């Protein structure tokens, strides 16, 4: 690592990925294979380019980092073994810490709804999560068509299962989500 100034964003990226963005020589293979690329305004390789140029805002406010599905196609084909999928994770974490409102709020809302259930019960309570998500997005009618069939087939439990060691889980959440650097 050759950074003389430890910009906190750069530090976080190094903490999570253990890599330096200077590895990337902008070949574009990641973007070429990204299944979500068609829906992104800024392709993945360009996000890395923004970071290389110090244009952190452009990277952190993009919809790209939230549309990334973590499929790892990019990381597995990158000729420099650069872990772009992990980089996207790091950028999301930084974005939330900096309080940047994502372009596509729904993705963040979904993840928040999901994690809320885990923190409360230790396991995913799908009905609760879907409910939370709908309330936070205001779209109460989403997937309503599937509801009858899903409930009839008992594919979603009506009651959550709370694990015995739930306090431990809450402790894990509290300690992990604290904003400290390594």
């Amino acid at each position, binding site marked *: 690592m050759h950074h003389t100034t430890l910009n906190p964003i750069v530090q976080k990226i190094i903490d999570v990925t253990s890599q330096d963005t200077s590895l990337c*020589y*902008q*070949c*574009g*293979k*990641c*973007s*070429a*294979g990204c299944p979500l*690329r*068609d829906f992104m305004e*800024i*392709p993945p*390789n*360009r996000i890395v380019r923004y970071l290389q140029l110090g244009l952190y805002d452009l990277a952190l406010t993009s919809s790209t980092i939230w549309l990334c599905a973590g499929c790892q*196609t990019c990381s597995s*084909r*990158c*000729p*420099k*073994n650069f872990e772009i999928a992990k980089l996207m994770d790091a950028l999301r974490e930084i974005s939330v810490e900096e309080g940047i409102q994502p372009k596509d709020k729904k993705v963040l809302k979904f993840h928040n709804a999901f994690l809320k259930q885990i923190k409360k019960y230790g396991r995913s309570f799908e009905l609760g999560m879907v409910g939370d998500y709908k309330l936070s997005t205001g779209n109460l009618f989403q997937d309503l068509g599937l509801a009858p069939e899903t409930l009839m087939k008992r594919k979603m439990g009506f009651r959550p299962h709370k694990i015995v060691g739930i306090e431990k889980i809450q402790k894990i959440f509290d300690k992990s989500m604290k904003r400290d650097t390594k």
Partner: protein
Amino acid sequence: MRIGVFTCHCGENIGRTVDCPAVSKACADFPGVVHSEDYKYMCSDPGQNLIKQAIKEKNLNAVVVGSCSPHMHEKTFRKACSDAGINPFQVEIANLREHCSWIHDDVPSATLKAIDMMRMMVEKVKFNGPLTPIRVPVTKRALVIGGGISGIQASLDIANAGYEVILVEKEPSIGGHMSQLSETFPTLDCSQCILTPRMVEVYQHSKIKLMSYSEVENVEGFIGNFSVTIRKKARSVKDELCTGCGLCVQKCPIKKVALSEFDEGLATRPAMYVPFPQAVPNIPVIDRTICTYFKNGKCQMCKKVCGREAIDFEQQDELVKEEVGSIIIATGYKLYTIDKKPDDSPIHGYGEYGYGKYKDVVSGLQFERIASASGPTSGEMLRPSDKKVPKKIVFIQCVGSRDEAKGFSYCSKICCMYTAKHAMLYKHKVHDGEAYVFYMDIRAGGKMYEEFVRRAIEEDGVKYIRGRVSRIYQDDGKIIVKGEDTIAGVKVEIDADMAVLATAMMAQTEAPKLAQTLGVPYDKYGFINEVHPKLRPVETSSGGIFLAGACNSPRDIPDSVAMASAAAAKALVLFGSDMLEREPVVAKVNEATCAGCLYCKKVCAYNAVEAKEIKDRNGNLIKVVAYVNSGLCQGCGTCNATCPSKSVELLGFKDDQIYAQINAFAEV
């Protein structure tokens, strides 16, 4: 001893940090020193004259120079002293630059250190004895390993200078990869047209002994005196009787079993075959792994039709011994094959490109064969799967190159140029076709190279897309290529008819083994190492062994040819004298004290130590001692460090010389 001490300022290099006049003054007081002076540039003519004058006037018999590293000017000062009449090995250099002025800031302490260093050398030189260079005879014959364009060039240069050359080639014919190419960049010359005259010249040259279908098995000896064992593999044909009529090849019934190596697997060849029509020598070879006679004793069709009784099924490999003075390695390269490799291989393959899975995804050399008039499609642009003319063709550069994850981190140098060439050849033959090239950078640094690539884009309409390809797969007979253009920031998906992968140049598989046989170092990729990348590009660290062409590093034809001539020149320098002078800084065994444990022999990296029998006058064995072959010894001193009885010494660095230095330093 009458010692002269000369302190050089080296301009500012030493003078800025070391007070040279003070050093010179201090040295004048050392016992044994009768002359001491300092000067700005000792290595210059006037500087050297100062030394020569002092030697004559003061009758000096030893000289110490405080200057830059001995690597730079030891030779200079030794010659100057030798010219003035003292033995050049009674000259010692104190490195006041790299070991003192360049690494310290403080002038007073650096000056004191310099004085110490000079004193150490003065004390050492008192124990120096005169040494004479070792002279070894030179065998004025060369061995060239590899019959590609580099080997051919080197052979012709040496042979035309009047010396004999043995050219060893492992394939049945010389020509190498250049004979597989259709046209060469940047002139678009027909490759075989410019190559075959040279091949014939080699074959007909009275001074070149061509040993094709042969491999170097063992090498012993040293510069000027190599003893090489070559294995002549059995062709099953007596080459002195064969006329090259080709009837046996025609009549061989096993036609479809083996894939042609020359056509890169795109066509078959018979069991009895000549690799290509213009092969030199035009003598066929029997592939014993598939020949019916060798499998069950039947057929013998070739023997029946041969009018000269040249077929010899009983022929065995023959081991031939040759004495040569110089060896040139010109073994060339092989192309990266990107199918799956074993886990410990440095290559991890490109499953995402479908090479080996889809017939219409081919490598660079395979495309050359398709484009070549002597190839499987007679030069027509036809794709391998259904022999249709591809209307859309995609070329992908950097496959295996510049890729730490799945290939090699280096750049293969030639792919940008040959891809442009391929695209142009395609467009010249398929006027309404579309050609696309996916690239990361364009490396076109040679003469007329940049113009060549621009021609492909501006005149022949080849579309260059800047970005790598993520995946290739087949759908409905089309080759789907999924790439990206990073300049425009758009996805580029092409449903092509064919894809050509510009695969990396890599070292031959057997290159490391050959390097070990010759005792030359090679790098982690198997490329043979040169001594110094800037100033000694065609020499290996083993004296008398030179290299040329792609065996050293990815390289194109003009550079390979230039390098081959350079290597030939090096060999000719060697042949220029009957005797070779070598530095006498070699190991010497004191046979009186040597116990014959031969540990020194075990640790010698140059195989320079032999066991020697000491016999009495009646021929009875008294003892066995170690003996150092001064022609092979490189003066590394390992034996000296290993010997338990202190019986081996390094001349020029004897124990008493070293102890004198240490003592001089220790008594402050």
